[in-house]
């Protein structure tokens, strides 16, 4: 067995744990923090809340919110300018994957300088980053756990994967109460993303006992809790989704992802679609594609979904996938590629970009361009 690694940030978990944000920042040496978020989080009032806490603890801040979903390279430069001008130290981000990934990009430039695409790929960050404290507002992206940072290169129309252990934040504060203010769509998209993280990292080529455990925990928590969370916004269910998302984050940060995310990144680079909503479309087809390569693990996933059943692994796997598709349909999210793309003309480029994506590397079954084309066609 090859040597593996399991690295995660310090995690503060619990209802109301947002209150610790200022102390955490101070402990990391904050005098003036760069606070990053987006207008969506602002509207829900959580940015104001963080500012209040900072103020109460006499921590100065500068605020940056020019972040889209799928953060762009130029937004990273803008944020870096704010950071430098303010002579900020610690970086705090509150939000979904986008503000946190933008924060990571800004942190790279703050510690290393240069252009953000200098760091595309794995382990190209050579100097330390400013301390980072992240508060995820969606139970899904796992960016607050991971060593990944996805930034859209506007000129090349693709999502760059930047991978570095230095991107793992110092502290991640997970407060399930924040999820209470999320829209239904966002809760679903995040949970599906987290589910996809769990599934892909579970079957990853570099999965380890420490990641598979977390992945299965996430898979087992998401299916039963997602419906409840959507229907009555039960805080218990939301809390379980937070745990699931965090566990999935721990898993994929260390084990990597797979073909579904490779294709999702190429889709996100070309079309500005919400990352979480791509997975109900892609994940079942990718799982079908991967089953021959890892029937045992896919069977385990299947049994998580359909319950323990005495049957061959492949059968359990396929039945699980069927059930998963039904589940996605019940959530009333797009489940066919034709629901989110105008036509099939982009398939060639999508497939080409997906082959080169870093996530494709850990997919249990080698996926070439033709495989991606076939997957797209089946998902149409």
């Amino acid at each position, binding site marked *: 067995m*090859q*040597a*593996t*690694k399991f*690295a995660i940030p310090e995690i503060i978990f619990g209802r109301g744990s947002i209150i610790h944000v200022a102390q955490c920042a101070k402990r990391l040496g904050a005098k003036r923090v760069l606070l990053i978020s987006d207008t969506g989080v602002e509207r829900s009032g959580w940015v104001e809340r963080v500012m209040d806490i900072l103020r109460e603890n006499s921590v100065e801040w500068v605020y940056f919110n020019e972040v889209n979903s799928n953060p762009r390279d130029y937004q990273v430069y803008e944020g870096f300018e704010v950071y430098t001008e303010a002579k900020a130290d610690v970086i705090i981000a509150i939000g979904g994957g986008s503000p946190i990934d933008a924060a990571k990009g800004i942190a790279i430039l703050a*510690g290393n300088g240069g252009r953000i695409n200098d760091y*595309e*790929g*794995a*382990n190209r*960050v*050579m*100097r*330390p*980053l400013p*301390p980072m404290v992240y508060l995820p507002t969606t139970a899904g992206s796992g960016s607050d756990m991971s*060593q990944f940072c996805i930034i859209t290169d506007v000129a090349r129309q693709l999502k760059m994967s930047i*991978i*570095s*252990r*230095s991107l*793992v934040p110092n502290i991640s504060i997970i407060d399930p109460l924040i999820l209470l203010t999320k829209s239904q769509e966002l809760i679903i998209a995040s949970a599906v993303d987290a589910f996809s993280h769990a599934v892909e990292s579970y079957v990853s*080529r*570099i999965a380890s006992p420490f990641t598979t455990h977390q992945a299965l925990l996430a898979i087992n928590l998401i299916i039963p809790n997602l419906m409840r969370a959507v229907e009555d916004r039960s805080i218990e269910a939301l809390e379980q989704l937070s745990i699931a998302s965090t566990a999935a984050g721990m898993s994929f940060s*260390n084990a*990597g992802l797979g073909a579904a995310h490779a294709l999702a990144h190429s889709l996100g680079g070309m079309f500005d679609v919400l990352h979480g909503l791509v997975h109900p479309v892609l994940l079942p087809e990718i799982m079908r594609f991967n089953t021959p390569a890892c029937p045992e693990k896919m069977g385990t996933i299947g049994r998580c979904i359909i319950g323990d059943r005495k049957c061959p692994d492949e059968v359990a796997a396929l039945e699980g996938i069927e059930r998963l598709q039904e589940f996605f349909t019940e959530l009333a999210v797009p489940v066919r590629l034709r629901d989110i793309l105008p036509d099939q003309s982009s398939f060639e480029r999508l497939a080409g970009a997906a082959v*080169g994506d*870093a996530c494709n*590397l*850990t997919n249990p079954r080698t996926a070439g361009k033709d495989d991606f084309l076939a997957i797209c066609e089946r998902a149409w």
Partner: protein
Amino acid sequence: MATELQPSLEDLIGIEHCKLGFFKELRQKLKELKASNKESEQRRQEIAAILDGITDIMMVLSEDLRIISVNHVFHRLLGVKNPVGRFCYDIFRGERHPCPECPAHHSFLTNTVCRETAIFTIGERNRQFEMVASPIQNPDKTQRRILIFKRDVTMEKEYQAKFYQAEKMATIGLLAAGVAHEVNNPLTSISGFAEGIKRRLSKIENKDVAGLEDIEDYAATILKECRRCQGIVQALLTFSRPKSSPFSPLDLNVVVGDTLKLLQHNILRIKDREINLRLDLCESLPLIYGDESQLKQVMLNLLINARDAVEEAGGEGSITIRTMKAGKDMVQLAVEDTGCGIPQENMGKLFEPFFTTKNVGRGSGIGLSTCYGIVKEHCGEIIVCSQVGNGSHFVVKLPVNPEQQREQPV
């Protein structure tokens, strides 16, 4: 590029990569800073040592000629307590405005290296300085500065003057030797024929020839003048090509005594009055090596000159002869008179052959030049101080051991 960006599974696991901490960075920075600090400190010391090794006055001036910094030579030579911030011209000249010939000023205007020599009075002594002003290239052009070196060239200029003198003497010496040699032959003929005429005259003694006495008289005069000329020629040859007869240990006091014995009655008298002669001889004078007769000639020449100077001044006056030690390796003979003195414009020509201020018939003008040649041959030095109306002061310095002096040229 694409393949280079493509990570491997190992990259994703990243066993060798961990979250980089600021502590490590800080420690590295500290280490680097310490190392570079040490290095720059060493460099600073080296540069300081180099600067300390500079023996010229060094100053950095601002555009309005205020002193920004100076080196230790400045402090040593000028002894000004807080020069920084004061005007350069104030310190060196006590002026309120920049000096017109200031090289720093030119350097600022032209942005080139400028040189100039000037005389400054430092500690009541006039000293000649060679100045070099060079603009300091500053990356930010806001504040221009000038670096000035001032080298004290007083001694050099003195040596240079002596060198020119020696050069001139050598050339003139060669010329004189040539002339003397050429004149010697016809002189011998004239003298021979004059002797012949004298002999012939004696044979026709009893014959009554008109004007015979006159002719005898003429011949005697010719012979007398010939002898005089021969003496001059001989002296010239001595001056230019002194015979290097073997030197022997000598007591300078004995040379003085012998010379005086020879001359006292004849020369040191003016209109039947003896000149007031003072002797101040050092009793424990080390022996020197030299040619006794040549040194006597020097002594003689100096005495004659002193006597003439006293006479010129009216006859009332004195001559003092001193011998003394001069440092560890030299002795000196000084002849001082209270005579007429030598005008400044003649000082440079004193040792040139045929230069004389005496009346025709009194001096040939080769006395001092002969002295110069002899003293030179003895590896010594002859120095003159004089003031018109107050008298002159000739000092002959001779080495105790001339051989040693030759090996270590000054």
